[in-house]
Structures are given as C-alpha cells and as structure tokens.
C-alpha cells in the first residue's frame, strides 16, 4: 500500500454484496466491515485484508443458510440429526470423495484447473465488459416510460439536438411528455491542489434529474430553479466516484465550494453510487446546470445557435401516452420548426423518438457495438470450448484408467447412476475450482486493462465490476462446463460391459471408443486455435501496415499544448499578441527547434473542421452552391514543427498580418481536384464567410481525418488573420517531448496565471489515438489466440503423455527386443502429430472463410495473406512437435525391465 487510503478488498465486498439481500441493512453491515477494516489496516494491510475476506465469507454463508432455512429459527446453522439426509448427504459424500481423489492427483487437477481458469477467466473478463457497456440497466425510475429524442439529418440518423430546439420542444410537449431531460458532456477546468485539471462535466437541463427519476445520495441534485438564466447558477452536483476520490465521501461537503472555470461553484449534493450519467461509457465527474455552459466554455454559442447540435434528450411519457403519441408530437414539432426556422431546418431534417429501453448508447453506435460485442464473445466462447475439451479429454483419460475399478464396483452391485453421479461431481468440482480461479484472473486482468494508460480521445469510464450478474454468469458457465463435458466421460466409463472389461487385458492399451473421442477433441481444439491464430495474425499484420503509413504529418517528436483564449479575456488583437509572446518564449526553451500553432490538429478524432469555398469553373455538388473543404488555420512556424512540407510557393510570414491581403495555402490534393492544370499560386478563391483569399503556397498532402483515407483536399488559413479561440501549440524538440509540453504549459502560465489549457501531450500520443482501435483489436484477439494455443498445447501434451503411459509395456518390449530409441520416440510422437495435421488442415479451411468475413476490418493486408497463412501452420508444427516429443522421449528413457514389470 503506497499512499492514499488503503481499500478493503473490492472483490470480497462485491461477493458479499451479491450474497446478501439488497437494502439499507446490508449497506450498514458493509459499513461496519469498512469501519473495522479501516481500524485494522493501521496495524497491517495484509492482515486486515485477510480479516476482511474471512468476515465476508462467514457473513455471506451465514446469510445464505439462514435464507434457506426457517428465517425465524436462530439456530439455522445447527446440525439437525434426522432432518434432511437422503439426497443432500449423498451429494456431500460424493463431494468429499471427489475432493480426496482430486487432491491425490495434483498434476491432473492442477492442469485441468489451469485450463478452466484460463477459459472461464477470459469469458468472465469479457462478459463483465459487455455487462457494463451493453447489459446493465441504468437506474432510471420506470424506464419503460422514457423515450430518446434524436435529430435526424441525411447521413446521421440519430443525432443530437440544438439547445433552442430543445427549449421549443419542451414548450410544445404538453399532453405527451410530463417532462424532458437534456444534457451534454463537456470538459471544464477545475482548480486542483497544484495547478488546474480538467473534469468531465455533464451540463443538465432543469428537469433532468426529475425526469430520469434519480434521487440524491447526499444533499440535493440540480432542479428547474438552477436552470433559469445564462450564467446565473454557479451550483454543482458531484458524481459518487468524484465525491469519493476528491472529498473522501465527506457528507459535510454540501455547501462547500468547487472552483470551475475560475469561478466558485456551490456544491449542492451527490448522485447515487449506481448512476453513471446519461451517456453510457462517459461518466461525468460533476453535473452543472445547462445555463452555465457558456460561462464554463467562453466563446461558445451553444445555448443560442440553432444550427449547433450538441444536446442529448430523453422525454418521460405521460401515463396516457405511448411511443406513437411521442412520434406524433415530434412530427408536428418537425413541421413547425421547418416553417419557423428555415435557416436551420431543411426539408430532410426531422425529430425521431426511440424507446430508451431499446437503446444502449445510441442507435447508430449500437449497430457497431452489438456485433463487436457478439464477435468478441464468440472468440472467448471458442477459447472456453478449447478449455472444456481439455477437461473432457482429461476426464476420459482418467475414466479409461479407472475402468477396472468401476467395473468391479458395478459387478458388486453399485448402481450405475450413483457412479455417474460421483464422476459428474468430480467434473463439476473441477469446473467450480477452475471458475473461482478464473474469476480471480478476470478481476486481475480487468484491473490491468482499466488502469492502463490508453491514449483515449475522451475520458471513457467503464464500471466493469464483477457484480451479481457477472458472478452468476461465471458460476453458470462453470457448472454447465462441468456437467456437459463431464457427462460423456462418465457415461463412457460406466458402459455396462462389465465382464468384458474385467476379462479384457486389452483395455489397458486404451484405444477404445473413449480414445477416439479424445482424438476428435484434440483435432477440434487444433482447428479452432488455428482459426483464432489466423485472425490474430491478420490483425497484427494490419496494425503493422497502418504503423508504416507515411502520414505526411507529425514526423518530428513534439510537445503539444492546447489552449483556449476566451474573447472576454483577450479581445481582438490581444489573443494574437499573447500567442506571439508565448511562441517567442517557447522557442527559447532548451531543445526546441521550431514552434507553431494551429486551430485544429490533423488526425483529431474528436473534431474536424470544414469551410465553404466557391471555385470558379468547378461546379459545386448538387443542391449546394459551394464546396465544403476541410480547413484549419496555422501560423508561419507550424509546418516545420508539425512535419508538414511546403512543395511550391511560400509559407506564411510575418508580413501576412491582419491588415494585409488574406492568404491561404492549399494541399496537393486540393490542386489536383480543383486546379487540374496545376496553376494555383496567386489564384484567388472565394471563402464564403471570409471573402476573397489568395493562395500563396502548396503543401504536400498529409492524412487529415484517418490513416487509411484517400488524399483529401485541404485549405490552410492564416491564423494571424483571424482571432483564434482554440489553438494547439506544437513545438518540435530534440529533448523529451513530454517534458517540453510541460515546460510549454509553464511558460503559458507565467504569461497568464489563469490561462485555460485543455491538454498537454506529445505528438506521439496524439497519433496513437488513431491507432488505438486497431491496436486494441490486435492485442485482444492475439491474447485470446495465444490462450487458445496454450490450451490446445496442454491438451495435446496431455493426450500424448497419457497414450505413452498406457504403452509403457509395449515400449519396454520393443526396447528390450533391440528397437532404436529414436524410432520408438518417433512412433509415439507421430500419433500426436497426425492429429495436429488433420486439425490444422481443417482449421486453415475454416480460416479462409473467416478471413473473408473480417476482410473489411483489415488494413493494407489481403484476407488470404500469405505470411499469416504460412506462419500459423509453421508455428503450430513447431509447438505440436515439442508437445508430442517431450512425453514420447520420456517413455523411451525408462528402464525396459521396470517397464515390463509395470501393470
């Protein structure tokens, strides 16, 4: 434990929460444990954690048993002689017997448990993510009466609303909606212990908490009185997580103060633990009134501009209304808005209603999210299948070893059902122990994943805790795996062929029906692993290909600082003067080679900006009288510091000022699209909201929006001929870029102590954001494919060593008759390799089909990539040979005499 408050073991707490009835009494019990843990932790964290686990276990079992028996009988745990008995006693006897048998063969048990732990762990981890993102319901009151309202425009079926439209809709909603909740996420600057930090804030309308039915945990939440006039309500409600982290869960914080955007806000209350905001996956740290939006983000016109769409909305239906009435109301509003606001509403824009319970994040996102979640569940399901095949294979091997014993028991009159039951108990116990280990593994790997410092464009928070749903899932999977994959071996072992087995010495060679079943299992395992490995290979190859793409941007290592220059603070030319002084200082920092600024970086996943141009001789797209072209403003130093290359003409210079002729630089893609004759320097272009601009230079085409895009036309405007509000400063450096970025921020601070910085970072990290989905995909699929390979290897190793152990006598005879040890090893190895060849061929055939299916997700690699399709079998050949050869060679090292005496 280093620093901070030592926490009680979260997994123990969750298991306990799942075991106890929900309610305030349970909360109080957990509070008691927490309080005593805090007292104990001072004398040693490890012992306190062990104590917590013990208490949680005892308490959970006490409550579980009390619930099963008469709740009024205080002695529910007392043994009651004569009561119960029968079936429970039988089960208990089976459990004890199985436990003894499992402990007696630790190697078998260990390998089986490890297999299952890997399989069930992978499933638990992925399922808990799916549960957190897709399955878990938001704690809205009566969610069936909630309706999502979306703004539909061509190309965007379920978009967000503008603030003015939202307010108009509230006025028009009588008779259908009892209220409407609107909110939008934003980053706000908050004072921290040292300097400032950004908080994610959800700006919410007055009825937000009332409509959603969220009750405060402490104090009050925001209400209609907090959303009356712009800038007039400096109040804030805290999310549970933020309250815990920043204020140590202090209920006395109500009435306290939090400085946001340089202004004090009064803390009014805390949201409940299970509420994570209206936009799934993006949990805010604080909730502020919508009317404070412009005060927190100076320079935005969000509240008043009808063309600025940014608001998520949900309505609560009146008891008399349904989704049909809701859509009817929205249709009337659509017609009304089109007539009243023609500048903002075209004939193809509309409002649409979708029941909230039908939506996970957003209908458009869901269309991608659900298949992705499904695909990854299939992948981990396959991993589990391989693990279960190991279980079945091992149990079959054990059953074959025990056929004599079982036959004797049946001959002596044991019921077949009892023996099957006992064997099944063993399988289920193995699965449960494996499942428990798997849950631990999942908790550990999730913590690793969720605390990893991923270059995310937005602070995504996922509460992937192992709650009751996840634990029941893992328990169910474990029991099902034990029953399903234990059944065949159990039935196999007890086939009523008693006299045959007792007589038949050949049973010792173990090539019966059970052995064939095991062979089939190994073939299946190999085939599935090959498919997963091919998929992983293809994803890794596309990641590699996208890393190699020449971006034409961001080559030199550089520090980046993003600043906001609000108009109130820097009216008119002050903004540019501030930037000039800052750049001058940054240029003087050690290691800095060049510095420049832009209004928007290339390859920015959260924002792309365009501008409208009229170009003589090139007709605009149908229905428009201009060309919409990607656009950003830069200054003279930017191309050098951001690794852009001017190929013709000149860059911006100090001579291009606010009073001189407006100039732009265009890229090569722009030239070939709009000036095919190549003659562009000195040509005048009309930018609809700027007037005539003259092109003075041509930039080499860089990637603008995506790594894999076709060359996009781009226009670079002159930052000095505008009043910039948002700027990203980029300084290429010969020293550590991270340190340079922090030094840049310090310089900005020393010029203006209250400067608003959105982020400090490096070019490397900025570009890593674009690679993240591909990187995550490749890493996750590779991890599971690697897991599948390990599991299949365990299976193969197990089957070969078992076959070898059954043939010790035969090997002994061969060796004593003078057979060459190498030949014998090869004979034994061959059996394993034969299975791999069959499974591999099957797997490659299926892979060819799968590769075509995932072809759309690949980048720079054909689906039937030769490297992958040759590499995977080569890898498998090596692994399979080793896994078969190791046990085989061991057999030939035994002393022939000892081998002959065995059995």
């Amino acid at each position, binding site marked *: 434990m280093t620093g901070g408050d030592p926490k009680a073991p979260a997994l123990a707490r969750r298991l306990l929460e799942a075991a106890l009835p929900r309610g305030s009494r349970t909360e*109080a*019990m957990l509070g008691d444990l927490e309080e005593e843990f805090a007292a104990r932790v001072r004398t040693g964290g490890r012992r306190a954690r062990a104590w917590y686990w013990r208490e949680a276990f005892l308490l959970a*079992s006490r409550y579980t048993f009390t619930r099963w028996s008469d709740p009024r009988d205080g002695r529910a745990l007392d043994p009651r002689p004569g009561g119960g008995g029968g079936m429970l006693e039988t089960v208990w006897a089976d459990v004890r017997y199985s436990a003894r048998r499992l402990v007696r063969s630790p190697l078998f048990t260990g390998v089986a448990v490890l297999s299952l732990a890997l399989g069930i762990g992978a499933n638990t981890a992925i399922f808990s993510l799916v549960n957190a993102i897709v399955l878990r319901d938001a704690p809205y009151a009566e969610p069936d009466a909630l309706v999502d309202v979306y703004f539909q425009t061509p190309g965007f079926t379920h978009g967000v609303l503008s603030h003015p439209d939202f307010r108009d809709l509230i006025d028009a909603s009588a008779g259908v909606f009892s209220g409407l909740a609107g909110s939008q996420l934003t980053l706000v600057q908050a004072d921290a212990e040292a300097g400032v930090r950004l908080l994610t804030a959800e700006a919410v309308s007055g009825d937000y908490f009332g409509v959603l039915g969220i009750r405060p945990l402490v104090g009050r939440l925001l209400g209609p009185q907090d959303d009356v006039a712009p800038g007039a309500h400096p109040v804030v409600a805290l999310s549970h997580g933020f309250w815990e982290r920043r204020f140590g869960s202090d209920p006395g914080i109500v009435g306290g103060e939090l400085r946001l955007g340089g202004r004090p806000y009064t803390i009014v209350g805390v949201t409940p633990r299970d509420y994570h905001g209206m936009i799934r996956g993006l949990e805010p740290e604080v909730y502020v009134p919508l009317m404070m939006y412009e005060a927190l983000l100076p320079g935005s016109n969000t509240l008043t501009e009808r063309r600025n769409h940014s608001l998520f909305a949900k309505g609560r239906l009146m008891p008399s209304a349904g989704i049909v009435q809701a859509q009817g109301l929205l249709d009337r509003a659509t017609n009304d808005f089109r007539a009243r606001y023609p500048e903002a509403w075209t004939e193809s824009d509309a409002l649409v209603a979708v029941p909230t319970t039908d939506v996970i994040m957003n209908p458009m996102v869901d269309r991608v999210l659900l298949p992705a979640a499904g695909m990854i569940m299939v992948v981990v399901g396959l991993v589990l299948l391989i693990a279960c095949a190991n279980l079945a294979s091992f149990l079959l091997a054990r059953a074959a070893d025990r056929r004599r014993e079982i036959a004797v028991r049946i001959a002596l009159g044991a019921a077949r059902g009892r023996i099957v039951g006992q064997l099944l108990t063993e399988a289920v116990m193995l699965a449960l122990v494996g499942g428990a280990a798997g849950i631990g593994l999942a908790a550990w790997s999730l913590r690793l994943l969720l605390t990893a410092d991923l270059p995310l464009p937005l602070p995504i928070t996922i509460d992937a805790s192992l709650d009751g749903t996840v634990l029941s899932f893992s328990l169910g999977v474990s029991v099902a795996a034990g029953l399903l994959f234990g059944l065949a071996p159990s039935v196999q072992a007890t086939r009523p062929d008693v006299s045959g087995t007792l007589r038949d010495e050949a049973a010792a060679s173990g090539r019966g029906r059970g052995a064939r079943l095991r062979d089939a299992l190994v073939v299946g395992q190999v085939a599935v692993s090959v498919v997963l490995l091919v998929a992983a290979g293809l994803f890794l190859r596309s990641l590699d290909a996208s890393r190699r793409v020449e971006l034409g941007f961001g080559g030199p290592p550089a520090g980046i600082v993003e600043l906001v220059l609000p108009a109130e603070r820097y009216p008119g030319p002050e903004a540019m003067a501030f930037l000039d002084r800052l750049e001058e200082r940054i240029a003087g920092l050690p290691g800095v080679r060049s510095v420049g600024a832009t209004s928007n970086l290339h390859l920015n996943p959260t924002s792309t900006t365009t501008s409208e141009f009229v170009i003589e001789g090139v007709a605009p797209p149908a229905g428009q009288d201009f060309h919409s072209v990607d656009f950003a403003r830069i200054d003279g130093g930017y191309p050098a510091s951001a690794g852009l290359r001017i190929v013709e003409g000149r860059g911006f210079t100090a001579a291009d000022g606010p009073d001189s002729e407006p100039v732009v630089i265009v890229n090569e893609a722009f030239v070939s699209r709009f000036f095919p004759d190549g003659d562009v320097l000195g040509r005048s272009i009309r930018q609809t909201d700027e007037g005539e601009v003259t092109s003075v230079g041509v930039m080499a085409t860089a990637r603008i929006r995506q790594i894999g895009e076709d060359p996009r036309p781009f226009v670079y405007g002159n930052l000095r001929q505008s009043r910039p509000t948002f700027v990203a400063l980029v300084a290429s450096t010969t020293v550590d870029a991270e340190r340079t970025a922090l030094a840049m921020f310090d310089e900005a601070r020393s010029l203006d102590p209250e400067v608003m910085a959105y982020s400090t970072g490096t070019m490397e990290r900025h570009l890593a954001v674009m690679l993240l989905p591909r990187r995550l995909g490749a890493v996750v699929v590779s991890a599971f494919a690697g897991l599948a390979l390990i599991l299949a290897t365990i299976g193969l190793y197990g089957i070969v060593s078992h076959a070898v152990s059954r043939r010790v006598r035969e090997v002994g005879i061969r060796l004593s008759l003078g057979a060459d040890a190498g030949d014998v090893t090869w004979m034994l190895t061959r059996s394993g390799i034969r299975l791999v060849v069959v499974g591999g061929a099957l797997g490659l055939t299926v892979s060819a089909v799968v590769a075509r299916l995932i072809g759309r997700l690949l980048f720079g690699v054909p689906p039937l990539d030769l490297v992958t399709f040759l590499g995977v079998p080569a890898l498998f050949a090596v692994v399979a040979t080793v896994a078969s050869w190791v046990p085989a060679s061991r057999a030939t090292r035994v002393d022939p005499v000892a081998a002959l005496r065995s059995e």
Partner: protein
Amino acid sequence: MGRDGYLGDLEQMLLLAALRLGDDAYGTRIMEELRSAVGRRVSRGSVYVTLDRMEEKGWIESSMSGPRPERGGRPRRVVRVTAEGVAELRKSREALLTLWDGLEDSLETP
C-alpha cells in the same frame, strides 16, 4: 429467543449492550461492547441475524444515519431498545432473580 417467552442469552446481551451504548449502538460498537465488557466474542452473522429478528418482534427499532466517509460512504444502523424490549428484559431478569433467590449463599465462591 425465549422458548417460553424468555429472552435467549445473546438477545439479552445485545439488548443490554444497546441500552448501555445509547445513540452509539450500531453493529461494530455493539460487538466491541460485548467483547470489552464481558469478553464475549460473537460471530458477526449471529449479531445481525439476531438484531433483525428482534426488530421483527418489535423489541428494537433501528434508524439509518447519513453516509459516513470512514465507512466508505455507507450509513450506520443505529438500534434503540423499545418499551417492549425493556419489558422483555425485565421479565427475564425477574425470572432469573427468582431462581437465584436463596442460592446466593450456597453458591458463594469457595
């Protein structure tokens, strides 16, 4: 639990501890009190289950305090012995005293 309407021994101890603690009578403190006053260690589960049962019988009432930071933002369940609870205590005490009557001398510590 009182087979014939008398309090069980854990019940008595819990009620007495709650009375001694007054406003501070919640799970952790009650268990501490039993440990420090009479050296009795009881399992956490028995304490909660017994408190639940006594509340059902109306011998105690409980109220939840506000969330507290030292308890991970969780409330305390503070119990208060009701008039019925006190009556039960008295009944048990009198029964015991009656039975003890006259035995004090002969059971004097040797």
